[in-house]
């Protein structure tokens, strides 16, 4: 009859039943077959039976090795990794590793070999160069051209600009232009439109104010002129028909000039030429102011003409 033995996992699962003798006769025979072929389980059971007073102790290192083999695996792999990872070996380096090395001669040898390798490797960092290599390197590098770093470029540029200040200014102006274009608030598209609309609104309002002012001023001027005429009629020292004719000619000239200037101001503001708009609005106002009711008729005409210029 072909009897199949139990597995290591089965042994670990049924450890308590084995100690208590609670396994069946068939399982006991299968366990015996397994232990004949598995040193790890045999060692583990032997150690456990010693701990529970059921058997004399076998070789403890061998037993430990067997127990570790069926539990965590060999610790020597980890030990070597820890040995080589220590940069500055010392007594305080690793208590667990030291404990392992005390009991594991193989890892002790590996640790000693690593220490030797560590000491040897830096000495192998250099090799004797073939004869003539130094001379060849110096010869070839003396003929080689250096690639300038960006600091060298900047230094060279700075030195050449110091020698040519006008070129430096022009270069500075050229460099400044894109920055002005990029970072000036008016160049930002959204902000530009908003600013432009604000300016149009402000200047249109200004132009309207100027026009109203002009109209009011013209009205006041006509009133003043009428009062002046009345006075002159009363005084009787000018020819009445000639004076009335002169007065209406002046009013026509001034109102024509004011009208033209206000129109020009409005056109300039609507096309964004605000400075020009203000100038024309100012000219309209000057034309009104030039219509001085107290002045002589010749002077008044001159003033009106000057205002429209």
């Amino acid at each position, binding site marked *: 009859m072909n009897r199949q033995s139990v597995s290591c996992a089965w042994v670990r699962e049924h450890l308590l039943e084995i100690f208590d003798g609670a396994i069946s006769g068939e399982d006991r025979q299968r366990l015996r077959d397994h232990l004949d072929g598995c040193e790890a389980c045999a060692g583990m059971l032997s150690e456990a039976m010693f701990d529970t007073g059921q058997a004399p102790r076998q070789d403890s290192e061998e037993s430990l090795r067997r127990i570790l083999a069926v539990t965590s695996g060999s610790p020597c792999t980890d030990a070597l990794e820890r040995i080589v990872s220590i940069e500055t070996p010392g007594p305080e380096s690793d208590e667990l590793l030291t404990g392992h090395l005390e009991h594991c001669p193989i890892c002790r040898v590996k640790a000693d*070999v690593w220490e030797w390798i560590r000491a040897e490797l830096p000495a192998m*960092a250099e090799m004797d160069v073939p004869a003539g*290599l130094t001379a060849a*390197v110096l010869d070839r590098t003396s003929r080689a051209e250096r*690639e300038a*770093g960006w600091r060298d470029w900047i230094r060279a540029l700075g030195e050449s600009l110091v020698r040519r200040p006008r070129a430096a200014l022009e270069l500075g102006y050229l460099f400044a232009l894109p920055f002005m274009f990029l970072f000036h608030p008016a160049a930002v598209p959204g902000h530009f439109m908003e600013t432009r609309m604000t300016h149009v609104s402000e200047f249109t309002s200004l132009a309207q104010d100027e026009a109203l002012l002009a109209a009011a001023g013209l009205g006041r001027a006509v009133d003043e002129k009428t009062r002046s005429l009345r006075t002159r009629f009363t005084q009787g020292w000018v020819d009445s028909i000639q004076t009335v004719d002169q007065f209406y000619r002046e009013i026509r000239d001034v109102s024509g000039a004011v009208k033209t200037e206000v129109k020009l101001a409005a056109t300039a503001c609507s096309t964004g030429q605000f400075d020009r708009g203000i100038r024309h609005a100012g000219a309209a106002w000057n034309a009104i102011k030039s219509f001085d009711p107290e002045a002589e008729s010749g002077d008044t005409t001159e003033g009106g003409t000057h205002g429209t210029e």
Partner: protein
Amino acid sequence: MTLTEILRQCKRNDTLAWERFVRDYQGRIYRIAFTYARNPEDAGDLTQEIFIRIYRKIGQWREDESAMAWILTIARNLGIDHVRRGKVRAADRTVPVDEHQDIADPRQNPVEECMRDSRRRILQKALESLSEISREIVLLKDMQGLSLDDIARMLGIPLGTAKSRSNRARSELVHAVLALSSPEQLL
């Protein structure tokens, strides 16, 4: 004079500093070149290429970065180019330790010197048996003394990866050495 001071002088076109640099560091550069070229002739050519590249690019070296790491980066890049160009002669893979190791200390006796050469030959063979990645990291970390930070930056890998690669390479090296000799022969 430290390497940083020498390079700083070289950067200012001091030809004497350049000569000093070549004389002091040609052995190291040659060792690195040998790692990639694997034979003395190609290693010599590669060493010259490395020095010429360093000379040309010295203006780009930032004084706040590790001088050795900068030099090794140049050497490694040229070494990799050399391998890619297929310049490595596959037939000649052994390192003539007697000819290319550093000059023996005259205070040592001949027997000790012979034993040391023998042990180094074993270590050299063990290094040769490592994978490219492991050999490179041993070269950079344990031979040339670069920090793991510099190595990680140079290889473009995370620091943790550099550390685990270094530990793995060292473990492989220990096993390779023990496979080539008995501990009594070494220790």
